[in-house]
C-alpha cells in the first residue's frame, strides 16, 4: 500500500525568505503523480503544484518549485520569497490510476506560518 509521510508538523519562515517542506512516499508503482495542496485557514484546499513521475524535470509554478527525487521517493516543496498569504496547511499527495478511475493518498500535512 502507498503511504505519504510529512515529517514536519509545523514550520515558520520570515516574510521574503525561502522555506522547504519535506515529503516522502512509499510505492512500488512506476507511474504516478505527486501534488502539493494548500489549505488556508478558510479551509478550501487548492492545488499548488503537480509533478508527473515520468518527468525528470522538476515542476515550477512562480514562487513554488519542487525537488523530485524518484529513486529516493522524495518530493519536497520550496517556497521562495514567502508571503503572508502563504500561511496555510500544506499537504503532499500521491495519486495513481486504478482501473476506471484514480486513487489519492494524502500526507498528514505541514502547518506553515509566514512571519511579518
Amino acid at each position, binding site marked *: 500500500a502507498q503511504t*505519504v509521510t510529512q515529517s514536519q508538523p509545523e514550520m515558520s519562515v520570515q516574510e521574503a525568505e525561502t522555506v522547504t517542506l519535506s515529503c516522502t512516499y512509499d510505492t512500488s508503482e512506476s507511474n504516478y503523480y505527486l*501534488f502539493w495542496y494548500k489549505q488556508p485557514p478558510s*479551509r478550501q484546499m487548492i492545488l499548488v503544484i503537480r509533478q508527473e513521475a515520468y518527468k525528470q524535470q522538476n515542476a515550477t509554478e512562480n514562487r513554488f518549485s519542487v525537488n523530485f527525487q524518484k529513486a529516493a521517493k522524495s518530493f519536497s516543496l520550496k517556497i521562495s520569497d514567502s508571503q503572508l498569504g502563504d500561511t496555510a496547511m500544506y499537504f503532499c499527495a500521491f*495519486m495513481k490510476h486504478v482501473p476506471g478511475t484514480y486513487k489519492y493518498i*494524502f500526507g498528514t500535512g505541514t502547518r506553515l506560518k509566514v512571519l511579518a
Partner: protein
Amino acid sequence: DAGVTQSPTHLIKTRGQQVTLRCSPKSGHDTVSWYQQALGQGPQFIFQYYEEEERQRGNFPDRFSGHQFPNYSSELNVNALLLGDSALYLCASSPTGGGNNEQFFGPGTRLTVL
C-alpha cells in the same frame, strides 16, 4: 463557474443520529470523491462516485454511505453517529478519468457530534 460547493457549512448532531451532507461538483466534472479530515490530520479517503456508482472505497465502515445523482451531485450519509465522526468532510470533483489529475475541493462541512 461556482466551483465545488458543499452544504451545510456546519452541522451539530448527537451520538446515534444520522446525517446527510451534500456536494455539487465543479461544472464539467462527473467524478466525486469524499474525504474525512480530522483536526490536524490529512484528508482520509471515504469513497468515490462516478456514473452514479461507488467506484472505490476507503477503510470506512458501512455506516458511511453515499449516492450520486444524474446531475453528478452527491450525498454522503453517516448513520449511528459516533463522537469520532466529528471532522471536516471534504468533497472533491474531477472530470472523467481524472482529467489533468487534479481534484478540485469544496470548502467542506464541519460536523460536530456531541
